[in-house]
């Protein structure tokens, strides 16, 4: 009966979808009048409050991977899925302790602003753009695949049509409303997602005396005690578990679209409070995924879940249908769509910023591009990123989304995080040390993913693979640190060393002595040196 209904468009489902798209477009229209400068396009004019940004960070972060992917992994594999839930959360304190405040104080639009602050602009920004785009592309694939699968199942549309719809709404939102529209869509989405997941969890628990332990016990009765402990589906060996753990923990601190959100607040104190709120919201949400995953396993059953989507991505919507019927399924599906739209917008914007702010404005034009040109290039870059997202989403149908995001985290932890951390903490970090660290981190992660069981066995269906780990972070992240350190010790960068004291002061104390917290913009190192 369940199977018959899904893919058969229901009036309430369509109403919820249309309602959300209308809200998103209304926000876009409202934001359009506030998006006249590059600063507004990329950083919402630095006017977002700490609490708002906390919600927006949560909205940017709790992706389809969290909602659809993790619920599916828990439903199919039990405890193993929770490894993702927990891992996605523990990166946030790291962002807070090590990255958020220096980032806000030193940068303007991208994390490359911070890495390049003391170093030579051209090579560092080119390398950082490679790091950013690698992460963004993998992350985007995951989101687009999630969106396509969801809409296809809900409305019976062709997969490619579904991906195209998401891409079109996202591009309209970005081109017209920029970061302001993105921020508010993320806030609306975070509230919808937290509320929707909470209602779904309570509804589920109401069938188990409101006691999560009754639910877990029931899941264990039906599927065996093994579902409550670690299995061998997601992490096959010990090294695999540690590697995935490293990627998830340090990946967050290297995600370009998350780092970019810290520029939307007025100062470091607001950046700090936004992480505090985000950690609270995200932690709460991941606790709910325990209930949603085991709930789907018990009430829907593993058979029907994998029958509809082999990767398990439809577990949460199916659970909604089981406990609340068609209208609630429609609501949860609309929430999942909102989720994907908000994340895709944030990702595309950060990719566009790497292309236009880092590559065009700072590398090609040496930081001298006039304002109207910057804004125009930003919009062209947005179109390019959006088109790439649509094409990749269509090409790579059928991947589990939590899994693809795990790989994006590995690249972020290897390419971006080491260089970012060393640039703000180590006086003797040099231009070539940064370039080598980013390039080696990104390339190692990408190559190891290609020769890993993930690609070789699961995608290319070969019998074995050169590299034993499913996630490359255990090798690629330490290697990025080592290469950064060794190359920095072998080269000298006197200007970078001289500027460390000034940068250190600025990252700790901010620039509150000037009237506006955003001016003067980052004074880049002169291009010639």
């Amino acid at each position, binding site marked *: 009966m369940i199977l018959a209904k899904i893919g058969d468009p229901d009036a309430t489902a369509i109403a919820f979808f249309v309602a959300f798209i209308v809200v998103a477009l209304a926000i876009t229209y409202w934001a359009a009048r506030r998006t006249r400068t590059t600063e507004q396009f990329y950083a919402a004019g630095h006017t977002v409050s700490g609490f708002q940004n906390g919600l927006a960070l949560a909205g940017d972060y709790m992706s389809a991977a969290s909602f659809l992917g993790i619920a599916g992994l828990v439903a199919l594999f039990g*405890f193993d899925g*929770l*490894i993702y*839930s*927990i*891992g996605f*959360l*523990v990166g*946030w*304190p*790291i962002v*807070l*302790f*090590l990255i958020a405040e220096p980032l806000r104080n030193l940068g303007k639009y991208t994390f490359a602003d911070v890495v390049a602050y003391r170093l030579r602009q051209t090579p560092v920004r080119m390398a950082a753009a490679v790091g950013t785009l690698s992460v963004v592309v993998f992350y985007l694939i995951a989101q687009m695949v999630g969106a396509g699968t969801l809409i296809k199942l809900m409305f019976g549309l062709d997969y490619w049509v579904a991906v195209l719809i998401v891409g079109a709404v996202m591009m309209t939102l970005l081109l017209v409303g920029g970061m302001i529209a993105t921020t508010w869509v993320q806030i609306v989405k975070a509230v919808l997602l937290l509320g929707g997941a909470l209602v779904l969890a309570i509804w589920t628990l109401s069938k188990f005396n409101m006691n*999560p*332990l*009754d*639910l*877990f*016990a*029931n899941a*264990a009765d039906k599927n065996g*005690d*093994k579902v*409550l*402990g*670690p*299995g061998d589906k997601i*992490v096959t*060996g*010990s*090294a*695999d*578990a*540690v590697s*995935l*753990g490293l990627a998830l*923990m340090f990946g967050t601190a290297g995600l370009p679209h998350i780092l970019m959100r810290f520029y939307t607040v007025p100062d470091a*104190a607001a950046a*700090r*409070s936004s*992480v*505090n709120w985000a*950690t*609270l919201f995200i*932690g709460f949400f*991941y*606790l709910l995924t*325990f209930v949603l995953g085991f709930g789907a396993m018990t009430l829907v059953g593993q058979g029907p879940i994998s029958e509809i989507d082999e990767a398990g991505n439809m577990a949460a919507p199916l659970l909604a249908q089981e406990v609340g019927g068609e209208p609630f399924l429609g609501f949860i599906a609309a929430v999942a769509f909102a989720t994907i739209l908000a994340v895709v917008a944030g990702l595309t914007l950060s990719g566009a910023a790497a292309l236009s702010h880092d590559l065009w404005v700072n590398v090609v034009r040496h930081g001298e591009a006039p304002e109207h040109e910057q804004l125009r290039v930003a919009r062209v870059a947005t179109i390019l990123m959006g088109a790439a997202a649509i094409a990749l989403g269509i090409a790579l149908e059928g991947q589990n989304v939590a899994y693809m995001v795990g790989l994006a985290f590995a690249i972020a932890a290897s390419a971006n995080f080491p260089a970012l951390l060393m640039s703000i*903490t180590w006086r003797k970090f040099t231009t070539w040390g940064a370039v080598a660290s980013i390039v080696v981190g990104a390339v190692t992660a990408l190559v190891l993913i290609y020769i890993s069981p993930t690609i070789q066995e699961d995608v290319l269906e070969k019998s074995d693979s050169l590299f034993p780990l499913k996630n490359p972070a255990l090798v690629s992240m330490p290697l990025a640190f080592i290469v950064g350190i060794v190359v920095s010790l072998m080269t000298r960068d006197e200007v970078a060393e001289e500027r460390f*004291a000034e940068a*250190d*002061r600025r990252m*700790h*104390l*901010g620039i*509150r*002595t000037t009237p506006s917290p955003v001016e003067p913009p980052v004074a880049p190192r002169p291009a010639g040196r």
Partner: protein
Amino acid sequence: MSTADDVLGPDDQAGRRGGRRIETFEELAARRRRIALWLTAAMLVVYFTFILLIAFDKSLMARKLTDGLSLGILLGVIVVLATWVLTWIYVRWANRSYEPAARRLNEGVER
């Protein structure tokens, strides 16, 4: 090197102003680094205890404490709570101790 230490003027030479020691920028920055490092280490220990138990002792993590609750699930919830506590500790410290000190240094630069 022209930093706040010079700007603060003669009374800073003794390290005191109005009977109260003014923290130098270097001391404040070192204090922040120390706290950030300890809290990062604490988060690493909590999370990697969880991950290493999954990696090396799956049967211990699968042990049932009561009906429906394995050690793994309990530890998972504890990691989430630890994340909240550590974040809260840092933000509280930064708002109460770090911000005022940074403001004092910034005011020193302005004069």
